[in-house]
């Protein structure tokens, strides 16, 4: 009985001590390991992208039931049939548009707001369009709370882009389509890059990098991915 009590006491001290030694942001370690183990080894070398991925608290952008897997190497459902993309894909798309501090970037498909937050860490301003009001409003509130005042969110049909703020230095589309929407090409600056998952919206798609040049538009097919379908309101 005596020994049992001592063992229980020791156990409580050990557990309590372990809890006390946890850092304030207990997800920092997970975030660091996400960058080191999932992103860096897969040819993501852009310092600004890596820094942003290591800074933005991804666990705040996922629903409470999925916090424990927020930093895992995969997408997480966020409701309304949408997902927050796998960390590697977010980093890959960010690096692909070659972001610079003075850039104005258009994002189609705000979703959780995570991609917008990553971009906001690197570029001057982010204009993000979301078709699902509930998701857009939630992302807006969260980004405000996290002081990302250079992110502007509009609830609208992404197909038409955001004409009032065009042209954009770069465009990131985070929803799959069988086509590249003509208004988006129009709103891209000459010399600018647009990255978009294309292919059948319900099967495997490919990330395609579109570059707008003086007289022609070229594409470069990057890697296969799976995204939710590109939606239009009307």
């Amino acid at each position, binding site marked *: 009985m005596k020994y049992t009590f001592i063992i229980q006491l020791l156990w409580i001290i050990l557990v309590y001590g372990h809890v006390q030694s946890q850092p304030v942001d207990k997800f920092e370690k997970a975030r660091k390991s996400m960058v080191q183990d999932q992103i860096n080894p897969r040819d993501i070398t852009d310092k600004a992208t890596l820094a942003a991925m290591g800074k933005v608290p991804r666990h705040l952008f996922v629903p409470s039931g999925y916090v424990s897997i927020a930093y895992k*190497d995969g997408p997480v459902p966020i409701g309304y049939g949408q997902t927050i993309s796998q960390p590697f894909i977010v980093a890959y798309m960010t690096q692909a548009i070659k972001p610079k501090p003075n850039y104005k970037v258009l994002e189609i498909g705000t979703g959780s707001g995570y991609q917008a937050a990553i971009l906001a860490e690197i570029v001057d301003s982010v204009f993000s369009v979301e078709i699902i009001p509930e998701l857009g409003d939630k992302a807006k509130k969260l980004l405000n709370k996290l002081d990302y005042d250079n992110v502007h969110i509009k609830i609208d049909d992404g197909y038409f882009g955001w004409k009032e703020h065009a042209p954009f230095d770069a465009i990131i589309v985070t929803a799959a389509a069988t086509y590249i929407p003509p208004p988006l090409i129009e709103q891209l600056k000459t010399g600018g890059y647009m990255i978009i998952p294309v292919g059948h919206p319900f*099967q495997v798609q490919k990330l395609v990098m579109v570059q707008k040049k003086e007289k022609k538009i070229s594409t470069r097919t990057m890697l*296969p991915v799976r995204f939710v379908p590109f939606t239009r309101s009307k």
Partner: protein
Amino acid sequence: MKKDYFALDVSLFLLSAAVIGFQLTLMQILSIQQWSHMASMVISIALLGFGASGTLLAILKKYLLKQFDKYYTTLLLLSAITMVLSPILTGSSWLQFDTYLIFINSGHIFRLIMTCLLYFIPFVLAALAIGMSFTYQADRIGRLYFANLLGSGAGAIITVLFMWKIMPQHLPLINASFTLVGALFFYLLKPQNSTCKLLFTLTFCVCIMSFYIAPDIQPSEYKSWSKAIRLPQAKIQTVQNSPYGLVQTISSSAIRYAPSVSLTNTETIPQAGLAFVNGESVGYFPTDSTNKLFPLLQCTPVALAYQLKHRKSTLILQSGMGEQIHLALLKNSKQITTTEVNPVLHSLTKSFLNNTKYNSQILFNNSSARSFLKQDSTTFDAILFPAIGSFYGSSGLYALQEQNWLTIEAFMEARDHLTNDGILCVPCWLDYPYRSPLKLIATLDEVIKNQNIDTTETYLIGVKNWNQITFFMKRTPFSDEEISQTTEFCDSLLFDPLIFNNSLLVDVNPIHTTADTLFNHYNKQLTSAQKGKFYPTYPFRVKPATDNKPYFFHFLKPAGLNKLINDFNIAGIPYFELGYLLALITFLFIVVFGVSFIILPLKIVNQLKIKPSVFNYFAAIGIAYMITEMVLIHQFNIYFDNPVYAVAIIIGILLISSGIGSYISEKIRTKNSLWIAPLLIAFIIGIYLICLPYFINITMAFTLSYKIIFSLVTIGCLGFVMGLPFPLAIKQLSIENKDTIPSAWATNGFFSVAATPLAILLSIEIGFSGLFIIGACSYLLASFSIFSATS
């Protein structure tokens, strides 16, 4: 006594019809919930039930046979109850598994195992009843086996017919009703105690209740349907079930159709509706009331076929929802012929174009592409194939589905339907790692070289854009003018031309590039004399598909699997090469289950007492029957124009003729027949191996009634003798050692179980002719094992 026999024969007939019908029902349900390759698992589960029933019978025969009438009726009723309940339980949200998630979520492995067990129960109960009757009246085995096979054949045909009128969730009730009626018939002629009365009432109540509680079949959340139904303002327009699958159409403001459209296009992408078969999207249709056609198709690579020359006549193969028809109409093709095997899609396309001015110039054929090419002799200015890898499996999902319209022989037949200056057009979605386009290039190159032509000329050109490569092939060489027209077309729409002749000519500064620069390098190798060396070195199978191995979408090699795991990790594999992996998993799974449920229990209770020669005999005929059945289905698939009816007709003829063979076996007294029958089957298979493809070819143009007569003669003869070995051996056992009948039944069941997935895997490696040889060898082994034992 006669009344007793009659009661058992009729109830056995109805039970057998229900069992085969339930198999078809589960196959359709799984095709909707998951994918068709999971459906093939049902055959193995059913056979597993048959094998396990033999084991149970061996262990429990004393008790079961003592009160045969009571237990027989009980088993029939329990099997009816479980037939209606198992699909409801496995379709519930807490038990429905997802094919994709079994690779990443162990919970779904548990759900899969539970699903298999729940599907297994009705089969094992029904098979136990059948096995009991065989043991109980082993002296009448020929007649009982006849009723069993006749019922199975009739059940297959009846269930297929019911699929036209009944929604999939209610089909189990139809199957259970057969069993219930069978039990009732047996009960009325041979009344038993009140326990059965209670069970009858319970079965009746469960069946009625199931009609009201059976939920709609929910497709996997990874299927197109589940995604589309969540789109803004998604509205279901059509729902129709058929043996070809469940057809549904959806309209939504978010669905737009402009595949592979040029980046120069500034027009608004028009709104469209989307059609699905078993939850997978199969094609788009216009929903804009002012514009019945898709105008942007003129800005896609396929339009080059009409840019080079006006095409008066066009043949559109596998027309789906008719998107290619729109292009032909927009380009003023005056005679348009289409083929589409699915009658529901076919009639939907017709109805969409019915109210337009174009309807009179379209000839709709409700037939498969290959059957049309084999039977029709008309020539066309343009032949359009559907985009390969889009709706027909870009991800290896359909690796094990026969694609007899994408074989070398199919493309050669298509080429022979071209007019002298006609053009064949095949769009293909670009995948990565490169698979479909490379296999297509290799196939078309083979077709061209087969013509004995001057290889310095250009017979094949390609147009590449950001997600598709479209190939154009001609019987006569492309002229210099046509090549320069192609270049101009590509320049104006920002596409990249690929000119294939002795050396592949490509633009040095292409507009559309890929992650690596190897694509053109591979193309060059595949169209050179070096291609023989290229195939084994490339990590995926890109050697052309042939009629003997018609698996266009099977790409997986061990090296390719390693590459995919390295590039996309294990969780990404299902998106690329699911079909083959699932067949492999099914095979291993079934063998483990088979050993656990059939062999091991018999060993434990020391009931596996049959002689090695008898074991070999029943094992060999189990394997051989399943393999031969599969090869016959393959051989007659194109012949009947319609794969669903082909399967129903062939299984029907085979089972009924085998049933007649079993019936006749009762009159055979000589013991030598045990080894003569399988020897005779092996001999007939040998003849069929050489002659059948030839006779099928020459009778291809016959009318349906003559074709059925031809099939009745060919399959019927083989089926008749295939029905002999099993009842002959059971009868012999009933004379020599009746106690070993259940073990023999279990052995036969186990090897039939293992043979089904094994045959699929083998057909990929050795082709269907190789499989036919294995079938013949298995019968030879059966013959030899008995011959050596008796002599």
